[in-house]
């Protein structure tokens, strides 16, 4: 295996910043609201033009200017169906959800179980300077797992991460993008991509690009079937099995 180290001066592209970029994927699930998550404040509130509520079955339907609050999380929409006993339900029609510093807008949010939440239709989540845009998001709060079947784009002030399919395990600081994975950090003048990109936060910020992997920083370009970038303070890169290094100007041709 041919190995190239320190091809890039990645020290400035430090682990924390890339980690924050990738872990932004995780915010989508949690921003898609604390309804699926445990909250010390379990009180809930529902406002609407009309509500039907069966206290025996727990079935609740709200229509018109719906406002739902559970603990510190809130959501608004045009219509909501929810079961207070099973925690299964959905909010539709211009959904806006907020959970502490997280903000989510989408067409629909479905609470599929106490731990599974599905948001679809122009999903846009933000938390402070991080944001996610994509068609659908599924979040499993018990596993702290988020999946974006139709991909999307995660953006932070340090750059963006795009792929056709994305998933992440927040507890493990582990995220994966499949299909046209692309990471760009304009402030650091860095770009990388491949068929897949996988990030392991607990392994020195290891980023593995596989399948037509490539990376560019400044005028340095690295191509390989598999490219591993350690996003630690020193910043190192490994490429295997076939590595091709060329000036960026040539790579562009």
């Amino acid at each position, binding site marked *: 295996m041919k190995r190239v180290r320190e091809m890039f001066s990645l020290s400035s592209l430090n682990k924390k910043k890339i980690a924050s970029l990738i872990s932004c994927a995780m915010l989508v699930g949690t921003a898609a609201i604390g309804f699926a998550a445990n909250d010390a404040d379990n009180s809930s509130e529902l*406002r609407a033009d009309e509500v039907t509520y069966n206290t025996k079955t727990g079935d609740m339907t709200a229509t018109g200017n719906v406002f739902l609050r559970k603990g510190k999380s809130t959501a608004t929409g045009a219509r909501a169906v929810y079961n207070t006993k099973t925690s299964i339900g959905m909010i539709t029609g211009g959904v806006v959800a907020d959970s502490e510093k997280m903000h989510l807008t989408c067409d629909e949010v479905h609470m599929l179980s106490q731990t599974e939440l599905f948001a679809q239709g122009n999903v846009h989540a933000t938390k402070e300077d991080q944001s996610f845009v994509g068609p659908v998001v599924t979040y499993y709060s018990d596993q702290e797992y988020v999946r974006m079947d139709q991909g999307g784009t995660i953006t932070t002030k340090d750059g963006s991460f795009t792929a056709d399919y994305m998933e992440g395990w927040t507890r493990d600081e582990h995220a994966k993008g499949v299909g046209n994975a692309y990471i760009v950090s304009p402030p650091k003048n860095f770009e990388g991509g491949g068929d897949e990109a996988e990030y392991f936060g607990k392994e020195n910020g290891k980023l593995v690009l596989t399948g037509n992997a490539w990376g560019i920083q400044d005028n340095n370009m690295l191509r390989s079937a598999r490219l591993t970038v350690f996003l630690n303070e020193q910043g190192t890169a490994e490429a295997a099995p076939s590595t091709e290094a060329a000036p960026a100007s040539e790579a562009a041709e």
Partner: protein
Amino acid sequence: MENKTKYIIGAVVVIFAAVIAWTVLTVPEPQKEDVVPETPKMEYEQNTISEKKGNKVIWEITTESSEIDAKTQETTFKNATGKFYEENGNVLTVTAPAGKYSAETKNVVLTGGVDAKTTDNMTLKADKVEWIAKDESLIATGSAVVTKPNMTASGDQIIAKDDFTDLSIKGNAHVTRK
């Protein structure tokens, strides 16, 4: 000829007198206006009305005073205290300053600020509460509030069925759960 003239004059006088008499005696009486007979009403004090389904009393209302319209069979009452017996065994005790009961529809309307409480600590407040017999439902209108342990529901109107397990809230609906 003189006698004949006298007879003629006498006959004319008699005929004239007869016409005058007929005219005077046959003057039609002025037509009387239709007079609606006053509906008999029965007034009671400390009256109790009730509704049964089979042998089971669904509700009973004791009033300080009541008035029953004999024609419409509608009872109007004041200062009512009622009990609605729910299927689950709970009893809803309700008080209201005024109300009406229709013997035809079996509906009850309580007005003037209604307060109710059940034996399982559910409460109901509203400006007006109607018992709709055919639906076996209560319609609370005007600042309606239903409270249960750990739950409060309010709105412009609350329709309650099935012993207050089925609530339909219309207008400014608001539900809180602890």
